[in-house]
């Protein structure tokens, strides 16, 4: 708090002290601040600009006052010098993603509204990823993938990650799996851009310093025809996470901490910006976990400033030039939250809400029937590495059925090929087998959202499950009376070993 107030005063030399005070994090005063900002803005241009040498505001032209990175991305995408929270702007879309569940409906609307012979606005900006209901005999689900294929052929869509042989996913070199992880792995997530998807967890891509959010079929149908969407600029909540991350915590614990703090509606309509030394130390996959669940707090988008970690990840994945943007020092936030990560403990979200936070150790008497490791938030390579680390450390066997669903084909390959540190060269798959887990399944969204009745690991009975997924509302994984405890891969693996919700420190220390 103190630090940011100081920044505010230094960058607003010509404003009287009263305004400076307001420009910190007081939401109720935002309107008066805005007036003040407009009034003084022209005069201080030349004063402010030199102070921002290390963070070039050039991407949006001459920046008059501080903007958050979400505001900057939307300003750039709408060809405006600046935008403020609440502004409705027409935004040019860099990438639109859709999948087998919402793609057919979006295509239906596009054809109905723009004509049977209409062409999509840009065949290289549409990414179509079948991933939800793939390994099923459900005829309608299979038909929906066929609809995607026909459309991609007709429109000559460049990025379509098709699957034809459902019996063996590896016979489909184009097939990826879970869209949000595939988008990142295939280089479609780029700093400074606008990515929309017909899936609420599209916000995952904010980890790359871009604006990413979920939309419905009708909006997607509009984007397919025009490449544009009307968006309201959200105000930003800032989450400063500092301190060294204890080795028993993962990004899932951080986001469960935050959602527990602000509730499942705490960020509704708002952007969530994650900064601080802890966030800077996170890998891309862990950053994706953090941003994936902003929608569980109602957030419109989550965003993390791009840095060397981001650029290194993108190296070799994309040849599209991108331009990162960063929040100005004088940017205004609706509210700021600070966390000392070194003091946090492993968490779970108890049934039936992602904000029903509890310490894992407080739930040690909760007997469980199964463990599920998978999904866009908990089925990445590092998630399986983390689970393997716990199994390795314990040397024991799981006490409940443990289902593993790698998010993508790439993750599946990693699970079968990458050596787990400290294991003497064993792969995750070997460690899982020794621990008695189920064989890693074909990559897809799997049972995270229940799906057709024959979906692998779907909860068809009223059981208790510890899951690395992102939602635990009633019926989410299949059975309406099923109970889902959301947890990190560490906590999920530890729970599998005991048959109870278990703090991973029991095995990691």
């Amino acid at each position, binding site marked *: 708090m103190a630090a940011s107030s100081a920044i505010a005063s230094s960058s607003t030399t010509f404003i009287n002290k009263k305004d400076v005070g307001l420009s910190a994090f007081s939401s109720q005063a935002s309107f008066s601040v805005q007036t003040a900002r407009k009034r003084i803005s022209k005069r201080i241009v030349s004063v402010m600009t030199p102070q921002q040498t290390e963070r070039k505001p050039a991407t949006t032209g001459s920046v008059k006052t501080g903007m958050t990175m979400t505001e900057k991305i939307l300003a750039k995408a709408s060809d405006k010098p600046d935008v403020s929270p609440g502004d409705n702007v027409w935004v040019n879309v860099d990438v639109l993603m859709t999948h087998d569940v919402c793609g057919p409906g979006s295509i239906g609307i596009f054809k*109905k509204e*723009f004509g049977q012979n209409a062409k999509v606005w840009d065949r290289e900006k549409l990414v179509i990823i079948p991933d939800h209901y793939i390994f099923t005999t459900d005829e309608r689900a299979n038909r929906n993938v066929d609809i995607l294929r026909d459309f991609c052929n007709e429109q000559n869509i460049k990025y379509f990650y098709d699957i034809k042989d459902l019996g063996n996913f590896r016979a489909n070199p184009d097939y990826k799996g879970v869209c949000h992880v595939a988008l990142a792995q295939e280089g479609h997530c780029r700093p400074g851009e606008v990515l929309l998807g017909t899936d609420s967890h599209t916000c995952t891509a904010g980890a790359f310093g871009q604006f990413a959010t979920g939309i419905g079929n009708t909006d997607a149908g509009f984007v397919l025809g025009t490449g544009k969407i009307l968006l309201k600029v959200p105000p930003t909540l800032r989450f400063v996470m500092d301190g060294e991350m204890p080795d028993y915590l993962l990004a899932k614990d951080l986001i469960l901490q935050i959602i527990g703090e602000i509730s499942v*509606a705490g960020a509704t309509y708002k952007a969530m910006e994650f900064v601080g030394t802890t966030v800077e130390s996170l890998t891309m996959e862990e950053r994706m976990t953090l941003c994936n669940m902003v929608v569980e707090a109602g957030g419109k988008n989550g965003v993390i400033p791009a840095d060397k970690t981001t650029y290194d990840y993108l190296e070799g994945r994309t040849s599209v030039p991108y331009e990162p943007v960063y929040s100005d020092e004088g940017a205004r936030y609706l509210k700021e939250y600070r966390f000392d990560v070194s003091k946090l403990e492993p968490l779970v979200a108890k049934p039936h809400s992602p904000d029903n936070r509890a310490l894992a150790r407080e739930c040690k008497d909760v007997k469980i029937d199964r463990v599920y490791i998978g999904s866009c938030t908990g089925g990445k390579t590092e998630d399986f590495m983390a689970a393997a680390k716990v199994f390795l450390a314990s040397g024991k066997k799981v006490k409940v059925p443990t289902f593993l669903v790698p998010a993508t084909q790439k993750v599946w390959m990693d699970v079968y090929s990458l050596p787990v540190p400290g294991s003497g060269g064993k792969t995750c798959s070997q460690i899982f087998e020794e621990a008695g887990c189920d064989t890693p399944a074909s990559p897809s969204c799997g049972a995270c959202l229940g799906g057709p009745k024959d979906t692998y690991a779907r909860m068809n009975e009223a059981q208790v499950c510890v899951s690395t997924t992102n939602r635990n509302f009633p019926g989410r994984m299949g059975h309406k009376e099923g109970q889902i405890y959301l947890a990190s891969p560490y906590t999920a693996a530890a729970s599998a070993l005991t048959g109870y919700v278990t703090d991973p420190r029991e095995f990691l220390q």
Partner: protein
Amino acid sequence: MAASTALSSSITTFKSSSFQPRASSMNPLPSVKFPSISSHNPISHSVSAPKNYTVAPLRSAAASTTPDTTKTATTFHGLCYVLGDNIDTDQIIPAEYLTLVPSNPDEYKKLGSYALCGLPSSYQTRFVEPGEFTSKYSIVIGGDNFGCGSSREHAPVALGAAGVSAVVAESYARIFFRNSVSTGEVYPLESEKRICEECKTGDVVTVEIGESRLINHTTGKEYKLKPIGDAGPVIEAGGIFAYARKAGMISAREA
């Protein structure tokens, strides 16, 4: 009993004096039925209504007949179905039914039959009876954060297909609100106070969009709603595409 008789008569009055049936041809929905519940006791019927029960969603878009005011006279009347907080999209339409493509008319209809079938068993009254495609409840009342969870447009579509005209909740999850407006399926209205604890499933209610008001005839209480604002005309037109065509923002559909 006395109360409900009084209510019935008030509805009759309301019906006969305030509306000019089908004066406007702008009504996007073909099925406009007028309530003829004056001869019934609404409370007894709310428990087990016969199939031909005529408390059906009433949509009377008479805006163009009253040129002296820009307020819409869109009004909905019917039985309400009451829910709590954080009703997520899996409870509105469970994921196993997402194979249904809403832009396909047959599958649209089918989505209606599954509306709210994901509610836990603590909700003892079914929203849609087995074998039916639509619900007898045309207004859904909820608490905070209605429609949270996934971005599936199937959620407002399922409600609309089931015959719901309006949802009245304390607040909405962003994507559900946007999808409701974009599709024009249901009016996502916000109440100023928490009415989900004061209304019961089966209560007879009227929602007046122009007046931003909900009247519960069963309890005799009235509630203020937050104005729907610019989203109102979009929903009334039948969604963003219909609205944009009507407003000349995009050209007429290709033949």
